[in-house]
């Protein structure tokens, strides 16, 4: 198991807990969608798994080499070209100079941007930037890839395509992916498993398996989306005054 979360809790200062008793097991090579409304501590949970923040209670087991991270905005460095952004990730990992160039080109090809390597971030569209960002997180070469709403800011057409793209890359590279989103359709589209986090405090309240049949049958997928949405709304309604 690359990721095991046991009774994980997090609070900032004396405030109410953000996460409380979070339990989850994520297997190697699995694609897990972490779903929740605003304020459920999704991003905090990802930061804890990534080692950027420490939990205040509970235990967690993560791969010893850490995790690759992809942010909501591409967060590419504007002073570097697409290729140089990827090369920087390789460089900070300690990859030698000649190898960096070849590897970066391979990664650009993988995200279908083989000819756009010399463009700067501002010359790329939002979808292309997010693909460079994906290539950069793959350059980190970690088994575990954490994604924090990476497609939330994209237009619907681009997002649909990037879903296909991400699924293809996941299958080709065999990464373990934890994908945070507040979009139920996106969670069902991508995840093999959907975990629903409650809000304030965040806790895994229910999970659903997404089978191969859901992928080939639009009706079935719609059905599941409806069920999950209803459960999500129930969670939100709990906070009505």
């Amino acid at each position, binding site marked *: 198991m690359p990721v095991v979360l046991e009774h994980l809790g997090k609070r900032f200062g004396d405030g109410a807990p953000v996460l409380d008793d979070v339990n989850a097991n994520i297997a190697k090579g699995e694609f897990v969608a972490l779903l929740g409304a605003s304020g459920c501590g999704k991003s905090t949970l990802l930061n804890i798994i990534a080692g*950027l923040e420490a939990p205040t209670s509970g235990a967690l087991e993560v791969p010893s080499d850490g995790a*690759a991270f992809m942010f909501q905005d591409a967060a590419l*460095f504007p*002073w570097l070209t697409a290729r140089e952004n990827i090369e920087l990730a390789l460089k900070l990992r300690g990859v030698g100079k000649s190898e960096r160039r070849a590897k970066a080109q391979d990664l650009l090809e993988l995200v*279908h941007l083989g000819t756009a390597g010399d463009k700067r971030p501002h010359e790329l569209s939002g979808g*292309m930037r997010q693909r460079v960002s994906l290539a950069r997180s793959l350059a980190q070469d970690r088994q575990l890839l954490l994604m924090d709403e990476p497609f939330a800011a994209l237009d619907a057409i681009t997002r*649909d395509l990037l879903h296909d793209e991400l699924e293809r890359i996941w299958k080709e590279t065999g990464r373990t992916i934890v994908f945070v989103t507040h979009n139920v359709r996106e969670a069902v589209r991508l995840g093999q498993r959907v975990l629903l986090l409650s809000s304030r405090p965040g806790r895994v309240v229910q999970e659903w398996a997404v089978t191969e049949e859901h992928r080939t*049958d639009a009706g079935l*997928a719609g059905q599941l989306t409806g069920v999950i949405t209803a459960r999500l709304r129930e969670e939100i309604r709990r906070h009505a005054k």
Partner: protein
Amino acid sequence: MPSNPTPLAEAPSESAETRHIHAALTRTSTGKEDLRELESGLDSLQSDAERRHRIEWSRILLPIAALAVLILAWQFYVSLGVKRRDLVPGPLDVSTQMGVLWNEGKLQEAVWTSLQRGLVGFLISVAIATPVGLLLAQVAPLRRAFGPLISGLQVLPSVAWVPAAIIWFGLTDATVYFVVFMGAIPSIINGLISGVDQIPPQYRRVGTVLGASRLQMALQVILPAALPGYLGGLKQGWAFSWRSLMAAEIIAVGGTIGFGLGSLLDQGRILSDMTVVMSAILLILAVGILIELLVFGPIEKRLLRRRGLLAGSTR
């Protein structure tokens, strides 16, 4: 749960069209080639067509035209004869005087002496201020301790240091350089610090996630990210060195201090020769404009264009 699979899914000899409809319905593309094609279509729709860079004549002609208008207005005012000619000389008188100064070799000497001192003083200031600025920006206790002092030093006119410098170093080049340093170093440090302050916090997080060490973070992330602010600080630092230099040269004359533009200006004052005074002022101004046009302007423009910050600006 209505779970009967759609007939489209299993149809063995489906047409390309039905395959595409099915792919769109289940949100899976029909295959790698299809995905690549779709993506490259979208990419070309969403990226701007490339723009070519041409020589922009208005950039060269407009300033020249503006200059010509100003000189004509000046000449017109002088020919009205409102003031005595020796108090307000016309453009022709000044250019004649410059010709005389050129023939005497004084003009070249003054420009060269001042420019050389200004540049050397500025470069040494950069070499001192950059590491100090990075250190102050990155280490919170240091910044809390020295930040207010540095800001204060930037506000303090560096001319105020001239008397002290003369007492300490006498009429030597050391006096001039000291005043230049006191003018330039605080503003470069402040520029760098404010450049670092304006870095989006996301960049540091990315650096951390990518596994950058403290030194790598400073050199590979912080410094390049702060470059626009740093460059602003450098520009201001140059302006402060040039101004401080002129002030020092006007006040401290003689000794082993060479003959600079400030000295020329002071000489004009002593001789009550307005054409020399005007020549010196125009030369000081011209050096300032040339450094901006030939050094800082192109660097800044290139920097901003590469980061996509030039769109919509009037530069």
